């Protein structure tokens, strides 16, 4: 195996060890998402009994997609934070690993975790709460998944850069920043509900297109290229901005000495 792949594998395995030993990670990436699916499953059943106008399963699907996004961003950011909190980040960063290998490792760790979680959540939703998962919709689902992974990666890289630059005093952004985007991403309700200034902002958030599409295409046999394409383009823009910001923040943190101070 070439040296670069071995270094990526090293951090993938570190993340696996960390997950195995840490009840916090297990709760954050397994227990909370499954609890949310069950919660929204029952909300969906309740609404199904009392209304015929609300696309009830779309709430459950939104919960599944949101948790997938959250867990990926969590894994990317917390891969750094667990090392920082252990005062091991210097040891990792002074090994021959590059920044791109570092993020590739934690992104792969996140995608692996989310893939397993996503399948479990879908099975739960379909078997316990009757959410329809048709073959054409599965293709949409795959593209939703890929787009949300890109969004999660962009947020993860951006937050990690911020923590490098401003230190662990802002580490609550690691799990909190994404929630600022939840009300304007049309996760549980259509963007049309939002007042005008927020509606315009919503359309520059890539996740909005995924959630809007998921809501409208749950029972549709066709692939929603328009929303998926827009989500992908905006995700690419977000990833570019996040990578650029990270590079600047990382350099600034090493210039000011903050990077070394982050480990106390």
């Amino acid at each position, binding site marked *: 195996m070439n*040296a670069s792949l*071995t*270094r990526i*594998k*090293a*951090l993938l*395995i*570190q993340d696996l*060890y*960390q997950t195995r*030993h*840490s009840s916090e990670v297990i709760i954050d990436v397994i227990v909370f998402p499954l609890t949310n699916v069950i919660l929204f499953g029952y909300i969906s059943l309740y609404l199904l009994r009392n209304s015929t106008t609300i696309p009830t399963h779309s709430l459950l699907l939104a919960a599944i997609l949101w948790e997938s996004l959250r867990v990926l961003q969590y894994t990317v950011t917390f891969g750094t934070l*667990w*090392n920082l*909190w*252990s*005062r*091991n980040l*210097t*040891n*990792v*960063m*002074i*090994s*021959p*690993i*590059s920044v791109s290998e570092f993020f590739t490792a934690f992104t792969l760790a996140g995608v692996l975790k989310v893939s397993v979680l996503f399948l479990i959540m879908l099975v739960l939703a379909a078997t316990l709460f009757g959410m329809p998962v048709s073959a054409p919709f599965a293709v949409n689902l795959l593209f939703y998944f890929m787009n949300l992974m890109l969004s999660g990666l962009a947020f993860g890289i951006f937050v990690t850069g911020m923590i490098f630059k401003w230190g662990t005093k802002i580490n609550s952004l690691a799990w909190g920043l994404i929630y600022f985007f939840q009300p304007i991403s049309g996760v549980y309700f259509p963007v049309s509900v939002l007042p005008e200034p927020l509606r315009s902002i919503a359309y520059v958030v890539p996740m909005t297109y995924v959630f809007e599409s998921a809501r409208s295409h749950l029972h549709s046999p066709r692939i929603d290229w328009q929303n998926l394409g827009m989500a992908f383009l905006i995700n690419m823009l977000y990833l570019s901005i996040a990578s650029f910001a990270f590079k600047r923040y990382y*350099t600034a943190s*090493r*210039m*000011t*000495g903050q*990077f*070394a101070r982050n*480990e*106390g």
Partner: protein
Amino acid sequence: MSQPVLKVQNLTKRYKGYTAVDNISFEIPSGKVIGLLGPNGAGKTTTIQMLLGITLADKGSICYFGRDFYTHRQECLQNINFASSFNSLQGKISVIENLKVFAMLYNIADATKKIDRLSEQLELGGLMDDLYHNLSAGQKTRVNIAKALLNDPKLILMDEPTASLDPDISDKLLSIIEDLRKESHLSILYTSHDMNEVARVCDEVIFLDHGKIIAHDTPLGLTKQIKTATLKLVFEGERQKVESYIRESGATLVHIDKTRVQLKLPEQQIAEAIFGVSKTGAYITDVEVEKPTLEDFFLHIARKNT
């Protein structure tokens, strides 16, 4: 002459309002242990951070094995390592898991064999399955050293590796370092506040103060810069006569009581002082001369600036 493992030229780091490292240049020859000493705030840690790339220099160059660090980062890092009492490994995973991760990060061939050998050398056998955060300070230090040796580095940067260790564990660690030097041609840049430790393991000492190198010599060479020695005499006789002789002689009287006197004076005047005290009619029953130590040099510099 072989190429130095590390060559630092005009390294400078400024923070808002002060210069942490001020235009320093030095080399570490292959196989040498170089101590980096200085009072708090002298710039030792900032220097180490720049040498590792976790802090960026404002000016100057760092070359490992003849290659520029910033343009050949991976190649340089593959051949150096770092151990510090201020850094740890991942706390929530076991010792063996941590070592496996770093073995992969450094792309070590036959990692299991290498880890087994280090485990035996550093007596980690019983700790391998323990979670890192459950280890004692001494055990953590030994694991950190094992991590630092995984890639067979040509140079290790050690930032106060014995801080927070009890004297027995510190002594064991120093013995390990001495053994490593004997077995391999390892170079070490070593910072510590313990002067005895530095005198024991370092071939040369670079003394930093206010970010500048103010001395670079062997430990013995540095102590020779302190010209005064301490003379302790036990005597039977008239204290006043002894005291007035010492005051007239120009030596610095540190302490005197009915039977003991302690003074500081240039080394070449010791014999004259002993002779002078005996000429006052005092009968000298014991003589003790303390030559200057590295600690005296350290205190001399530190106090000069307070």
